[in-house]
């Protein structure tokens, strides 16, 4: 069983995230925990101490619970395993990180609606929460049917770590997968990519998985993102020191599919 943490608020991004995690739960045994962190807004509303503060906090938590419960109740029709949310007061990312660090989670999953400018996605990846992420994470940009996943190799991607983490996360799920080596350039003479691809394919087989398609694909990040848009999940490995404007990062910004990432 995998244990997944999903932050929820009463909004579209959370609704998409919940529906997506429920698709995962249909593939593998999944314990879904939801967390709602409500900013205490203590600067805006000075509160007292003792029972005054305590009562105020309880009211805040009740309000948050009502909003989010309504969302979860709506999604529970298709996903009966969704439980009641944890409601916490505090800084959103800090509280989520605390929970991730103390709760032995296998996966973190968050709804991240794409924006025209790429800055939000990049900033989110560079945020302290993501930077200190103790487990793999999925950024759900859109609600895509999880019927096929793509493992993305590219220059600088540790294929061994990619396959190990993917197969650890999805264990024995019945999920067709493809494995592509993305070269963000015009097609040139073959380099070591074919060999790396073969090593990764062999490694997948050792783990009991078979890549139905595997190939080296050439093109710009945008071209490849458009070409590979039908996947319900893209998985790859990123270096913690994100290089601004690296082709792999540009590809991840441009793709509409949910992406499973782990740090190198």
């Amino acid at each position, binding site marked *: 069983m995998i244990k997944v943490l999903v932050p929820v608020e009463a*909004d*579209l991004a959370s*609704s*998409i995230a919940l529906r997506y995690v429920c698709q995962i739960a249909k593939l593998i045994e999944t314990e879904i925990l939801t967390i709602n962190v409500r900013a205490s807004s203590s600067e805006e509303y000075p509160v007292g101490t003792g029972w005054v503060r305590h009562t105020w906090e309880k009211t805040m938590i009740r309000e948050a619970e009502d909003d989010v419960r309504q969302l979860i109740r709506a999604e529970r029709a298709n996903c009966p395993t969704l439980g009641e949310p944890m409601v916490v007061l505090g800084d959103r990312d800090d509280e989520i990180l605390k929970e991730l660090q103390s709760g032995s989670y296998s996966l973190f999953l968050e709804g991240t*609606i*794409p*924006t*025209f*400018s790429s800055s939000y996605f990049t900033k989110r990846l560079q945020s302290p929460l993501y930077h200190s992420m103790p487990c793999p994470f999925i950024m759900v*940009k*859109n*609600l*895509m*049917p999880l019927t096929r996943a793509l493992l993305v190799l590219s220059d600088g991607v540790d294929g061994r770590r990619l396959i190990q983490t993917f197969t650890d996360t999805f264990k024995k799920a019945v999920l067709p997968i493809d494995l592509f080596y993305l070269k963000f350039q015009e097609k040139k003479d073959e380099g070591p990519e074919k060999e790396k691809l073969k090593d990764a394919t062999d490694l997948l087989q050792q783990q009991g998985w078979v890549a139905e398609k595997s190939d080296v694909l050439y093109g710009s990040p945008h071209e490849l993102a458009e070409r590979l*848009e039908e996947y319900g999940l893209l998985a790859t490995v990123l270096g913690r020191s994100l290089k601004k404007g690296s082709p792999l990062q540009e590809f991840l910004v441009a793709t*509409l599919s949910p992406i499973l990432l782990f740090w190198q």
Partner: protein
Amino acid sequence: MRILCAVDENSYSEYAIRETARLAINTWANVTILAVHHDTALMTRAAARDLDLVETLRRYRELFLTHFQESGSPYDTKRCGYELIMLANGVWEDLYLCRSSMKELKVRLRAGNMSKSILAEAKKDASDLIVLGCDHDKGCTWKHEAALPKKVVNGANCSALVVTARKKIKEILCCLDQESVSQETLEMVNQMVTIHKARLKIVGLSKGKELKPDVDKSMQFILDYYLAREITPSISIVDTSELESFLAQESEQALIALVMGKKSLLSKTLSKKKVDKLVEASRSSVLILR
């Protein structure tokens, strides 16, 4: 639904006819094909009969009807045959009856100012949608009245679709008036997605960093609406300050559908001039929904 397809004798109008037929197959709309002759002096009854434009209109009617050969035409006027009709209790007669078509297909010719005549016909006919093509090589113009497409798009009280023949439409990009989206609007976009077998991208407009809560809620409703129809749209958020550049980039390959309700954020953001610019520069079709 009533569709007005405005045509002239140029090849771009053929694409407008084809697009109208595709829409009509799915919606069984009442359709008017309208041509306007710019020379009013020619429009005596006898002269009208001899106009090349009349022949063109008749050709367009045939072209429109060819799209219904397989599916059975709701515009077929030749529904004649014997039907057993009850005359009185216990008395029937097998009568030869001719029934009129289920839906109207009118072919009309007007004379006068072209854009004004199209708008007048749309108003008189209570059209829901005006469809027209244009010459994209010359910045979306018409031969006898260059600015006609822009005048019609901006002057119409109903929705307007400017069709391009350039590329296959792979994506419908829909900037919706998220605070109040009508069922008809959602359905029209649904039809376009189905006709073109295209992907749907829904764009929510934000002012500043985040979506307003009511816009966010409305986007959830829209997402559910399409998911229930087995269309999985992708979603994107665009700040109003970036809208123009976003549309310019996307109009390279997507059909742009803009909901321009009177109170919509989109109407406030995109002035008539900006809509003109979009129609003029777009390399793909543009649908203005009202």
